[in-house]
């Protein structure tokens, strides 16, 4: 197809001295119109001027504005992500405490009258075992969660333990008292509002049975005693929440009477106060029986009292003492 003469012609042409090239250069060619020249040059100058204007109108901080804004945004996003992550980790234990705290708050804020009303609605809940909380986790909670739950529920459990002390109103119910006292404490996670209700109910039920004829003074004393017990429970709950101490029945058992000795350092003070109040109530009941002439019942109660509170100091002239042990009042 391509002949060698064509190749030769091309080689001659590529030397740029062929007749074809000469004829091509002789062709008439229009020059660039002046208007086109002016337009192109004006465009070139305008582009340079515009670039200079942009550089002048843009200070250094504006040129660095975009990178700085980008860096600031990145830092802010990282900070937010870290903050949200930390809050998520902390929020779970806090939420558990917040969920339990209102229950305790409600129980503490209720007045004795409200407690009595609630006791009337559920009188059998006194000996019922503590129900498992629906929020109780199936697995072992995290240490923080466990501590928070313990701080919230332990005072209530402690209240339950104190509330089941033998009630002078029913001194014959030995089996119930023993079983209740010997009952192991409920798991921490299962203690919630229910133990608190039990306490209030016990307070009402441990009150001495209504005598056929009761003086206003004795009613006033009962109300005062219930209120004092509520206050003591509340203080103890608050103290245990703050200190984190859990008072066991064993630690509660040895108590000193009000008139003797300084309290042991390992023994919380409110424990002794609570038992002292209970012992005094019991003594009041014994005195009342003696006043009513029920010496046999009074002696039996005294024996039980002494068995329960062997260290409690009773004045020798106290009418609660049996006649054989009592000295005549001066």
């Amino acid at each position, binding site marked *: 197809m*391509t002949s060698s003469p064509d190749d030769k*012609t091309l080689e001659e042409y590529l030397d740029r001295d062929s007749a074809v090239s000469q004829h091509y250069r002789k062709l008439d060619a229009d020059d660039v119109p002046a208007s086109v020249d002016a337009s*192109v040059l004006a465009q070139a100058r305008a*582009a340079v001027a515009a670039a200079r204007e942009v550089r002048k109108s843009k200070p250094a901080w504006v040129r660095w504005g975009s990178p700085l804004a980008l860096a600031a945004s990145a830092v802010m996003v990282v900070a937010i992500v870290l903050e949200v992550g930390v809050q998520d980790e902390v929020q779970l234990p806090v939420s558990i405490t917040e969920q339990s705290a209102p229950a305790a708050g409600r129980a503490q804020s209720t007045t004795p009258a409200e407690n009595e009303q609630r006791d009337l609605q559920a009188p059998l809940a006194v000996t019922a075992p503590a129900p498992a909380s629906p929020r109780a986790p199936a697995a072992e909670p995290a240490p923080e969660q466990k501590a928070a739950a313990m701080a919230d529920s332990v005072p209530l459990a402690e209240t339950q333990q104190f509330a089941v002390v033998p009630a002078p109103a029913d001194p014959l119910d030995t089996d119930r008292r023993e079983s209740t006292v010997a009952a192991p404490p409920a798991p921490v996670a299962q203690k919630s509002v229910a133990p608190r209700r039990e306490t209030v109910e016990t307070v009402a039920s441990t009150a001495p049975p209504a005598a056929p004829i009761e003086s206003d003074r004795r009613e006033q004393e009962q109300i005062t005693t219930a209120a004092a017990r509520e206050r003591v429970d509340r203080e103890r709950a608050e103290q245990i929440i703050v200190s984190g101490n859990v008072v066991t029945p064993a630690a509660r058992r040895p108590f000193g009477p009000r008139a003797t000795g300084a309290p042991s350092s390992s023994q919380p003070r409110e424990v002794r106060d609570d038992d002292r109040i209970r012992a005094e109530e019991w003594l009041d009941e014994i005195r009342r029986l003696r006043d009513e002439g029920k010496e046999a019942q009074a002696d039996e109660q005294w024996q039980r009292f002494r068995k329960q509170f062997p260290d409690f100091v009773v004045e020798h002239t106290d009418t609660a003492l049996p006649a054989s042990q009592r000295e005549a009042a001066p």
Partner: protein
Amino acid sequence: MDTAFAESLVSSHELRVTESHVDEPSMDSAVTDDSALMLRYRDGDVHAFEMLYAKHKGPLYRYLQRVCRDPEVANDLFQEVWGKVIASRERYEVRAQFNTFLFRIAHNCAIDYFRRSGRVADKATDVDELAEVLPGSEIDRPDTQLSATQIKEAFKRALDELPAEQRDVFVLYEESGLSLEEIGKITGVAMETAKSRLRYAVSKLRAALKPHQPAGVAS
């Protein structure tokens, strides 16, 4: 010029100015000067651009005139080409001769123009077939006596009747002074293809001049 020509050069159209990866092993001082002028203009020296423009405006304008064969279109394309050179000054890098850079833009602008205008296609698309179609049949008549002006007109007619690809390569070779390899890169074809097109174009033009040349005159 036609759409078939435009479509045949699609690949070359894809090669934009800023995507040029032409590496010239040997750049003479003129090339370096042109690139230096362009770099100076990039840095804000308008006088450098004026020098560059004065040097290259003639070849570029003639190229556009020969390829488009319409002065108005050539004017528009001429301004468009220089406008793109101005706009691309910020991205300009010395990767090739300034001529290559400039005529690549011009070639692409011409292709765009042909696409937009949708001009009627020429008959032949195969350069081998076009080799058989030689212009200037009238001037081949032995009894025709033509003056120098008539010879010029005959040559111009033969040039205009060349297939677009052959005319493009021929005019590029004449006006830009680039090598066939560079022309192949500008037009988006292999160097051998560009050489073949140039060969047929030269043959046809030489054939158009042959009746008017005395015997023994070299081509």
